[in-house]
């Protein structure tokens, strides 16, 4: 009797689920990189950290060149190695490609003959590596990007790969380089049909750059992008945007979700966007909690040296000082300049609506919104957003520290000895929180 009841319930459930009119579900594989280095524990790096403190998790982000030497883009490599001689179409754009392991793995993941391979990136070495290992195929376009109109930087990071009707989008805040694993980046693959808008958008954008970089036609990039631009569509659970052409849409998304959020969490390599700061400030004044992660380099910015991250002391005045409030909190990640650093870029908005994440290759900076080619996304997909939330939580709770804790560790660290330590308290000179 019980079995029959269960059978009836099963049939009822199956009948209900068979009438849905939704698109095929996208699935995700996500990794938020937390480098586990031990430069400060082994003594490779001169330091006077107390022995009792050396096992602290917050110090494991501090990598040296020994760690960096074995820091291949393992997430991407593993994904490609799982798909040997598999992909028939590949489209991709990166700020830089610096790993021969990546180019070889990419070549081995492409089937013979392929339909097309289009890869565009700055830098030199990758071009020869990839050209020499690609199998036979119908069309390949590999171009070293030197300059793009009067824009500041070609800074996208994605791959769109397909086999028949199956497609995958790889998106990261990082590049496939030999220090990929010592940099704090997220890596993400989205499995999606090749006729999904998300997949087609990436193909369209890459093809648009193929024409532009190949000197085909004379239209501006802004006009060319009208081939690919997507209208705002709330039903699109992961909606892509190309900066700077979608900057209005990007800022309006940030403002929309910030206006509804009870808590906002941000990770960015740098912060200097006035519009984003103003949106955050308005949210903070409305009672929203804002938490943001910073690399610690800004704390040493009084030094005249131009740090590799482009973080500048001025950021403090453009961002932190503006956001001083009891419901704002910043935490720092203790990393070694030029080896390990916070490079992830995403914002998590949470409220009664659930959770929305804006992520991609673009930082919370003026350049990323108005001067660079960047691929950003708005995600209302709960599964994907949970990954970002867990990643932020991990960094925030286990690896980041506030100003006081940072000083405790940083003042003793050898490589920082010659840099002038500054006090960065977003509420400096103002009433205590």
């Amino acid at each position, binding site marked *: 009797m019980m*079995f*029959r009841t269960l*059978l009836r319930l*099963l*049939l009822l459930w*199956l*009948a209900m689920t*068979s*009438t*849905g*009119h*939704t*698109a*095929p579900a996208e699935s995700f594989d996500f990794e938020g990189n937390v480098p586990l280095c031990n430069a400060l524990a082994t003594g490779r790096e001169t330091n006077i950290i107390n022995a009792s403190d050396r096992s602290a998790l917050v110090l494991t982000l501090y990598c040296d060149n020994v760690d960096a030497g074995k820091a291949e883009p393992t997430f991407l490599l593993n994904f490609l190695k799982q798909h040997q001689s598999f992909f028939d*179409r590949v489209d991709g754009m990166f700020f830089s490609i610096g790993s021969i392991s990546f180019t070889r793995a990419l070549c081995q993941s492409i089937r013979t003959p392929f*339909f*097309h391979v289009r890869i565009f990136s700055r830098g030199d070495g990758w071009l020869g590596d990839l050209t020499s290992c690609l199998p036979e195929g*119908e*069309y390949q*376009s590999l171009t070293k990007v030197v300059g793009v109109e009067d824009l500041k930087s070609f800074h996208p990071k994605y791959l769109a790969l397909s086999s028949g009707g199956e497609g995958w989008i790889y998106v990261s805040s990082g590049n496939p380089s030999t220090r990929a694993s010592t940099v704090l980046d997220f890596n993400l693959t989205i499995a999606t*049909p090749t*006729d*999904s*808008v998300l997949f*087609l*958008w990436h*193909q*369209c954008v890459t*093809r648009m750059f*193929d*024409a532009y970089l*190949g000197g*085909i*036609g004379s239209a501006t990039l802004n006009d060319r992008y*009208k*081939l*690919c*631009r*997507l*209208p705002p*569509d709330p*039903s*699109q659970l992961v909606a892509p945007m190309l900066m700077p052409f979608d900057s209005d849409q990007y800022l309006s998304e940030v403002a929309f979700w910030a206006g509804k959020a009870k808590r906002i969490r941000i990770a960015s390599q740098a912060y200097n966007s006035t519009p984003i700061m103003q949106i955050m400030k308005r949210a903070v004044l409305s009672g929203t909690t804002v938490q943001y992660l910073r690399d610690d380099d800004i704390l040493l910015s009084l030094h005249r040296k131009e740090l590799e991250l482009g973080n500048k002391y001025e950021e403090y005045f453009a961002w932190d000082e503006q956001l001083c409030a009891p419901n704002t909190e910043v935490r720092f990640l203790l990393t070694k300049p030029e080896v390990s650093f916070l490079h992830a870029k995403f914002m998590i908005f949470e409220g009664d609506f659930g959770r929305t994440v804006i992520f991609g290759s673009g930082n919370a900076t003026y350049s990323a919104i108005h001067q660079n080619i960047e691929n950003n996304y708005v995600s209302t997909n709960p599964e994907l957003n949970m990954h970002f939330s867990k990643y932020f939580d991990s960094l925030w709770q286990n690896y980041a520290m506030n100003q006081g804790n940072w000083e405790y560790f940083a003042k003793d660290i050898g490589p920082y000895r010659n840099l002038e330590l500054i006090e960065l308290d977003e509420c400096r000179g103002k009433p205590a929180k």
Partner: protein
Amino acid sequence: MHLFEPPLFLGSCLFVSAIDYIFSKNIFCIYFRINLLIFIVKLNIGDKQLRVFKKFLICSYATSLWVAMSCSVFSQEPIRVLSWNIENFHHVDAYSYRGAIGTWRSDGDLRLVERIVANNYDLIFLQEASGKLATSVLVGPAYAVLSTEEYEATIDSAPTTDTDVYPFIAVARHHGPRLLSSKSFTLSAADDPASQSRDLQLIIVEGLGVKTGLLHVHLEHSCATTLESTRAACRRMNAEFRLIGEIVADRVDEVDNFIILGDFNRALLDPRLAGWRETSAPWIADLIPVPPCTLRPSSEIIDFIAIAKLSPEISIAYIEPTFFNLAALAKPQRISDHCPIAFQLIRPPSAQENE
């Protein structure tokens, strides 16, 4: 591991149901399976092992029945079809995809186009779209978009300054008939050395208990009423009609219904072409013209539903456009220069009773 331990048991259930489904995809088998399922459920078995086997059979057949019922092979719902030449359609407003011959649609125009297309159709045939992205944006994620080999080859080649439009078919993912096959056809190099003609698309679907072939066409323009001409465009158009004839002859026996639809760019109802039709398009058993609308001021009808074969159990009926008043548009030319046609394949009640 014992055969009836849960993991193997469930795996076996799924395996058997998959085999069952693959080899019995028609209504008769579904009725058969329903009766078999009832029979097995009612079986009074004493032996413990056999009782578990009974559960195994019930699980298998229930699963396969669900799979079969979830596809519309089983369904008697009409198959709703839209065919439309949306002139140079691109999904971005204030942008002319094809320059001087394109359209500058406003956001409102694009919303109206969406309204015409969004009427719960099972199959949507669009004759002029800039690409798969534009089509996917228009029809939304509930549809799979099928393109031609010609279009895919364009995507897989070096970009050029040329901008063209292509035919696309959107197939509803979760309702309507089941897609059995899809293929595109191109003219031979001898008939079309510069590859200027668009590919034809043939899909075969299964629904209403029958198989239907739908050949999507957007034929060569400039020869709507020309009887004889040595112009290249007219030669290509005549070659396209020959190709359609070959496709129909080759595939018509596979299906119960065979329909050719789209923009023929040929005034097939023109009395002057009656003789031409007999020799060049003998496969036209019946012809349904696209109803005139305000989008196309010309009285020359060139969009059709041509029927090469229709099962006696199936009939075709117009779907009255209810989207909005096209005549009230200030600039209808920005929507399209062609009228859409919506129709449905239905199984009349009398045909259902005869089963």
